[in-house]
């Protein structure tokens, strides 16, 4: 029995016992065409019966959602920012000569469905598991709410739901399932289906990668040098994401970590260290016992 923690380039579903896995599914969120309508947020909640997440006005542009969480599986970020380059260089949000130094970025964030998923790795119950589609799903009939997945996620996506006991799935870790039930029946996830501008695209991840590549090349050709892909590199710290993004600025501007690494990468080293420390404890005791 070989305990392979990772094997880059391979469909993680295959590594997780789905020898006959269908092509890996994923999202490509092209923020350059996002209009910030939040249809994704609502469609997701409606389909998945995710409860309301607070009626608080945040004063952060048009974002009153704040961040992803147990009761927010899609989150549209709004960033009002000055830009330092001439409008013509920005093929996306160039907004005329009166306002050449300003743009309004919008981006719909979602679970990344990492190839190497910290949340899944640390889950002690198997509630979080890799589906045949290569996605990462919490099974709410299994999860016991240990909460370990929450700090394990390098993106701060998953969270344990608070609230009154009568509410749905309180005490259980919750996040995007990439509409496991829908895609199992050949349907499109609710958010991607609702998205008016195809900013959120769903499909076979390989195909989405190609599309993302083409799109970024086009934007670069049009002079939008700040455009970049996020999560598409299989050699990055999470082995590439199942939900990839086209961003127009640094990831942290959108509240995304710039170079996340799944914690499990360091786990073998951690176990070694823990072993050494355990040994040290034994040695310490032996020394204490011997030294008479």
């Amino acid at each position, binding site marked *: 029995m070989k305990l392979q923690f990772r094997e880059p380039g391979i469909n993680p579903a295959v590594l997780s016992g789905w020898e006959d896995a269908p092509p890996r599914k994923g999202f490509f969120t092209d923020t350059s065409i996002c209009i910030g309508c939040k249809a994704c947020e609502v469609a997701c909640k409606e389909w998945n019966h995710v409860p309301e997440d607070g009626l608080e006005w945040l004063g952060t542009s048009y974002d009153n959602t704040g961040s992803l969480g147990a009761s927010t599986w899609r989150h549209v970020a709004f960033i009002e920012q*000055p830009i330092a380059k001439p409008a013509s260089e920005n093929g996306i949000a160039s907004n005329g000569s009166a306002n050449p130094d300003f743009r309004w970025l919008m981006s719909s964030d979602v679970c990344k469905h990492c190839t190497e998923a910290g949340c899944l790795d640390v889950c002690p119950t198997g509630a979080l598991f890799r589906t045949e589609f290569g996605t990462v799903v919490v099974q709410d009939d299994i999860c016991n709410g240990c909460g370990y997945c929450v700090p394990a996620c390098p993106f701060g996506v998953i969270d344990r739901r608070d609230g009154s006991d009568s509410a749905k799935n309180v005490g259980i870790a919750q996040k995007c399932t990439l509409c496991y039930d829908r895609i199992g029946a050949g349907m499109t996830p609710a958010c991607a289906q609702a998205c008016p501008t195809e900013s959120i695209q769903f499909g076979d991840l390989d195909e989405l990668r190609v599309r993302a590549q083409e799109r970024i090349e086009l934007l670069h050709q049009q002079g939008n040098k700040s455009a970049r892909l996020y999560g598409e590199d299989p050699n990055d710290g999470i082995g590439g994401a199942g939900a990839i993004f086209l961003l127009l600025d640094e990831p942290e501007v959108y509240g995304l970590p710039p170079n996340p690494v799944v914690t499990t990468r360091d786990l073998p080293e951690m176990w070694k260290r823990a072993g050494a420390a355990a040994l040290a404890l034994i040695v310490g005791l032996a020394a204490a016992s011997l030294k008479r």
Partner: protein
Amino acid sequence: MAECHPVGFQWVMEAKKRGAKIIHIDPRFTRTSAVADQHVPIRAGSDIAFLGGIINYILESEKYFKEYVVNYTNAATIIRNEFKDTDDLDGLFSGYDPVTSQYDTESWGYRGITEVAAAGPKNQGTKVSAESAQAGQGAAQRSRQGSAIHEHELHRDETLKDPNTVFQILKRHYARYTPEMVERVCGVPQKEFLEVCRAVTENSGRDKTTAWVYSVGWTHHSVGVQYIRGAAIIQLLLGNMGRPGGGILALRGHASIQGSTDIPTLFDILPGYLPMPSVDLPKGLRGYIDSMVTTEQKGFWSNTEGYMVSLLKAYWGEKATSENDFCFDYLPKISGDHGTYQTVLDMMDDKVEGYMIMGENPAVGSSNGKLQRMAMAHLKWLVVRDFQLIESATFWKDGPEIATGELKTDEIGTEVFFFPAANHVEKDGSFTQTQRMLQWHHKAIDPPGDCQSELHFFFNLGKKIKSILADSTLERDKPIQDLTWDYPTLDSGEPDAEAVLKEINGTYLTGEKAGQPLDSYTDMKPNGSTSGGCWIYTGVYADNINHAAKRKSGSDQSWVAPDWGWVWPANRRILYNRASADPQGKPWSEKKAYVWWDSKAKKWTGHDVPDFELTKAPTYKAPKGSRGPEALSGNDPFIMQSDGKGWLFVPAGLKDGPLPAHYEPQESPVSNAVYPQQANPTRQVYKRDDNLSNPSGHDKGSEVFPYVFTTYRLTEHHTAGGMSRFLPYLSELQPEFFCEVSPELAEERGLRPNGWATIITARTAIEARVLITERIKPLKVGGKVIHQIGLPYHWGVGGEALVSGDSANDLLGLTLDPNVHIQEAKASSCDIQPGRRPVGTALLKLVEQYRQRAGITVNTSNQLLSPKKGES
């Protein structure tokens, strides 16, 4: 558009992907601006100057589409010598009567035509419903029922050189709308303005078309109709009407607001834009018809009598006979403006006893909210039908006036009935969407509890009224007794909606086809042998098929998708599409081919249903003395117009001028830089102390209200919130009322981010959270910095919604466009101060202090004619 019609906006994004340039002209930087190629911040209320500037650019640089302009518009038509333009009359057109504040439009007419397109009785011609202007079936069109205008009678100069041609008048009129003037009035730098001009003109012509898209940002002005007219002139000059990718698209905000204009719940029209009978018309049906249609009427309005008689037959069935004028006098007569705002003022004056509100929330959604609520407290009875207990249903309990002490619950005598309504999945029926498409929605489940559709409720109500009056012998009760009201019902007791649709479509009453649905409005007869509830909808039920329910997948048919839903008229997707071909009937270009003359088959064909008589050759010349469609020549694409041409200049039918001229809003922080006349001299004002105005322009006291505010909607909410503020998923996305201000204004007034601000007008003061954003830019207007404040208007004060807050509409007063009686809601003046507003009587005191400081009386800003220089 991305903000309020995100799903429609997918097509704009699609076009952008293919290289289209998107320009967004708006005071605010919105979600649309975020993805536009160019955002042009403009001073609210200055669009006519901007549009006029573009017209001037087109004419000066000769960028107009000459062949289109000469053949398809009235550019070559010669106007009467008596016509005097705004240049000559300090901003007025000829014919202004300072006593009545109205125009006599006679001098605007075509030379040689005695009663130039005098659209019905002069005081009636333009009582066009508010947003019919939006429908593209606008003011001008409906009043198009003018006398026949034949080419041989018209004076035309196709060289466009005659100084009295429309073309030359246009040129003179817009000569002063230079880029410098645009900058001075709109606050748009010339460079930026010229960028727009270039983009629009370069993207028009044989191979390309430009589309203009607008919403209530254009209609909510005291010169709203003229805003649309401005765009119409541009589109006609550039040849963008009746062609794919062109047009002026009105984006409307309610599922069937188009339908409620076509089959109107509006005071001034009957179904199909037939005018409501007015008291000052000659007597009877004949008088009504003759006032609109002459014996030699040209175009499709010539059969107005057929449409009207069919409607009367639909209403009163067999009781309507040629002997009794088809019960024409059963119809009530109007005698002026009975629009919703006039009605509310009448409520204040205790002239109205009962009010029925169906799916609207005037306490929040209508202008001068306080007036709305106070007026409801004057009623004897009020019926509210909605899904939720909206603020209009609970004003007597938790409205803002209870808090200020202006109303006391136990002193309000209004009897209130709240009826829960069924929603769209609980009933069959059709919506007409913004492009005139009827789409059927099928009933999925029964409504819960007491919920009922309006169809069911009004059917029952009608039966009850009929039964109460069944034995009456009074003359006035006969229209009720004789009304046909026997619809087949479903198990639930509600009427079969398809049966109603069939009645709307119309049927043959006699002959071998008796009982069969009509195929087309051309089948309608003035002799009582047909019935039909709305002539423009005829065909929706042709062949006994509910065409509104057609659902052939978009991917299984052509890009025009004719087999999805049904578009009036005649399932035609683009109106006046004859104009998509050149005068000879050939497409202007292959790329823009849409409808063309097939010379072999000798008929019009194409991707859409041709908006032209199918076999009328492009070369056809209307014979002398012909009438109706026959009188339209082969190159008259605008078949509802009395001369078959697109109107650059409107010789009749509008109340405030044949050409758009820039006037300042009722409340403006600047004086009119274009003309000495400050505001629309025919605007509708109300000199009442419950509807005061801020001082405007350079009037004393105007400095008390130095800022411009504009109201609008957000993606996350729906109008006055009845369908959004009660839903958790929408409420959480925009939970509180906020104002959008620039960092500069925040600095000037000491507003703190995420704090509170109080916004004050002569009507009231409201509070909002402060969102400081660079999306709002201060503008330089005539050397002065103008700050604008953005206010989304979705919130209201009440106890039932999940989220509530002050209503932006409370700030607005009532000043109306004279053509359509729509309020000016998009540009008014105000003051803003940091902190929350006072409560209780202190609030009233604050407003009173402001009024005193600004010296406001009922006459403030309500002098329609601006004083001449030196008079003041």
